[in-house]
């Protein structure tokens, strides 16, 4: 290519000079005077002109060659730069090119540096993006794993985010429900929540707290047996441009609310416990007040001299005594149950004879039974019935079962206590059978629950709902025994307990 261009330049030069010389000689032979003058002139100056021409031609050729070389260098430089972007241009021995290459090299250096900086920045940014993505995912995972229902809505009350618990509670699909109005997602029977949410977002209040009760409708549960639930609902407004908690304070009404977060915490169980406690206190205070009322009334009568004769005075005193005992027993019951429950009870286990324990308790219950004209049938003495137990606690069990039997048996009924030794199973079984009001089948499994009172029995006699729970705790928790109950409404109930036999030890009573 380079040779071609050079050849072209030389040929062009020769052709042009030939044309010039040809033209001139034509002019010379035209016979004109100017032609002759020119011929003389040429004869004199021809060699000089030829020399000049040759010099000029060589100069032109050299210049062309130089230009072509320069162009070639620049082309190769460009090729070089194209191929390897980071490479420097080598010096080519040409001053102009060198200046250019230096300038290009300098610029190249600065660009390389700049690119390196940008690359570093990009890397940093990528790391930051990854980090924030991970952080976002973590936050999402945290919100999703919260057991409380969490719902986030935007300023138009459209769903932004909801966790699984919220999806379950309000029965919607959390992935496909985004950006849908919350009012459409929530069932009409839970619209109270939507109202509160919209209202608190509009009011711009920092946080709103309210207890909401609704029927929990699980997909796997039919609405019929859905139990009512109580939720503690806290709704917090999200303010624009104040993501930090440091800005907590009396909020500015002019601040724009860009959404709201609702957290619903299930407090059904707490409510139940609270209710049970309230009921318990109410029961207990009533139970305590009843004997106290008798004591107060009878002692006042004695003080006022209303008892006219010795017999009445004695009678009044015995009532006061028995009611004081009753009060004491009640307090003991309450204390025992709380001690056993808290594990603070002191247990003194010794081999004791159940027959003797039962005999003692029968004596105690007899007066109450005779008041109601109830016949108590004791057991036949059994020789070997000792159990390894806490004497006071088992006495309590027996007296609770006996007094219950008397309490819930109408006047003129019968109460029977039996002991049975099962040597193969290594057990002693005690059962108390009455001819009382009985317990309905659907309630029988709850009779040992704390505070539980069978509806029919509740009407029949007063009680704290503690006695049978105490029996169960003492027999099962303290003595590794077992309690049992069978009953028929209107016919009577049989309450029993089993204790392991104490083998080969001396009986102490």
């Amino acid at each position, binding site marked *: 290519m380079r040779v071609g261009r050079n050849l072209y330049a030389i040929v062009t030069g020769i052709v042009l000079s030939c044309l010039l010389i040809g033209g001139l000689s034509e002019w010379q032979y035209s016979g004109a005077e100017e032609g002759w003058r020119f011929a003389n002139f040429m004869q004199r100056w021809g060699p000089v002109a030829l020399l000049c021409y040759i010099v000029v031609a060589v100069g032109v050729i050299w210049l062309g060659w130089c230009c072509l070389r320069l162009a070639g260098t620049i082309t190769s430089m460009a090729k070089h730069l194209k191929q390897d972007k980071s490479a420097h241009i080598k010096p080519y021995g040409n001053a102009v090119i060198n200046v250019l290459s230096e300038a290009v090299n300098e610029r190249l250096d600065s660009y390389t540096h700049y690119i390196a900086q940008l690359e570093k920045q990009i890397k940093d940014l990528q790391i930051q993006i990854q980090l924030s993505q991970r952080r976002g995912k973590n936050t999402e995972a945290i919100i999703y794993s919260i057991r409380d229902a969490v719902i986030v809505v935007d300023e138009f009350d459209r769903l932004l985010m909801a966790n699984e618990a919220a999806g379950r509670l309000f029965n919607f699909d959390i992935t496909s429900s985004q950006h849908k109005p919350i009012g459409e997602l929530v069932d009409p029977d839970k619209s109270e929540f939507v109202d509160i949410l919209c209202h608190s977002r509009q009011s711009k209040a920092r946080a709103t707290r309210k207890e909401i009760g609704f029927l929990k409708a699980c997909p796997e549960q039919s609405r019929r047996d859905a139990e009512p639930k109580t939720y503690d609902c806290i709704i917090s407004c999200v303010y624009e441009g104040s993501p930090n908690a440091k800005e907590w304070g009396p909020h500015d009404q002019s601040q724009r609310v860009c959404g709201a977060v609702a957290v619903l915490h299930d407090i059904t169980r707490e409510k139940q416990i609270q209710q049970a406690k309230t009921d318990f206190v109410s029961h207990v205070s009533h139970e305590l007040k009843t004997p106290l*009322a008798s004591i107060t*009334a*009878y002692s006042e009568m004695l003080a*006022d001299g209303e008892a006219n004769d010795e017999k009445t005075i004695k009678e*009044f005193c015995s009532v006061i005594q028995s009611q004081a005992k009753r009060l004491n027993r009640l307090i003991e019951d309450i204390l025992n149950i709380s001690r056993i429950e808290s594990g603070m009870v002191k247990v003194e286990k010794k081999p004791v004879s159940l027959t003797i324990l039962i005999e003692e308790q029968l004596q105690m219950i007899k007066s109450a039974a005779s*008041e109601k004209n109830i016949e108590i049938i004791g057991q036949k003495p059994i020789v070997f019935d000792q159990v390894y137990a806490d004497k006071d606690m088992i006495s309590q069990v027996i007296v609770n079962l006996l007094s219950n039997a008397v309490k819930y048996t109408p006047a003129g009924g019968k109460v029977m206590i039996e002991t049975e030794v099962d040597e193969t199973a290594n057990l002693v079984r005690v059962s108390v059978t009455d001819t009382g009001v009985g317990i309905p089948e659907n309630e029988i499994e709850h009779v040992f629950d704390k505070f539980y009172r069978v509806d029919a029995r509740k009407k029949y006699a*007063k009680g704290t709902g503690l006695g049978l729970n105490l029996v169960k705790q003492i027999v099962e928790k303290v003595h590794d025994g077992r309690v049992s109950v069978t009953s028929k409404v209107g016919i009577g109930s049989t309450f029993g307990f089993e204790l392991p036999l104490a083998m080969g030890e001396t009986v102490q009573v």
Partner: protein
Amino acid sequence: MASKKVLVVDDEIHIVHVVAIKLRNNGYEVVTASDGAEAFEIACEEKPDLIVADYQMPFMSGLELVQKLRSSEATRDIPVILLTARSFAIEDKQKEDLGISQCLSKPFSPKELLENIEDILYQRDLVGHSADISRSLDS
């Protein structure tokens, strides 16, 4: 003047007993019952001048008893005093609606109960008296 008759109802036999003694010592005639249903029957038969009833009783509570008494012509006007272990059990409005003359919280003082009974019966006598007088004046 014939002695006044008071019906005492409580499932706690000791309470019935002590109130009965206090009232008998003070010249009242006393009839007793141990639950609401029995009390209603006796009230219809004996037509007492006043009823002292426990609030919490098996089968029929004191409140239910009062409701039943108020629904029957024969017993509509008998004043009732309720004894209750729960001071908050009955609201004032309910008390007024059912015509419960007085609520005494347990533990109660027999002396105070007697004073209340005397007050209520005296006021009723007074009202009855003035009604008699106005009737005689009219005629």
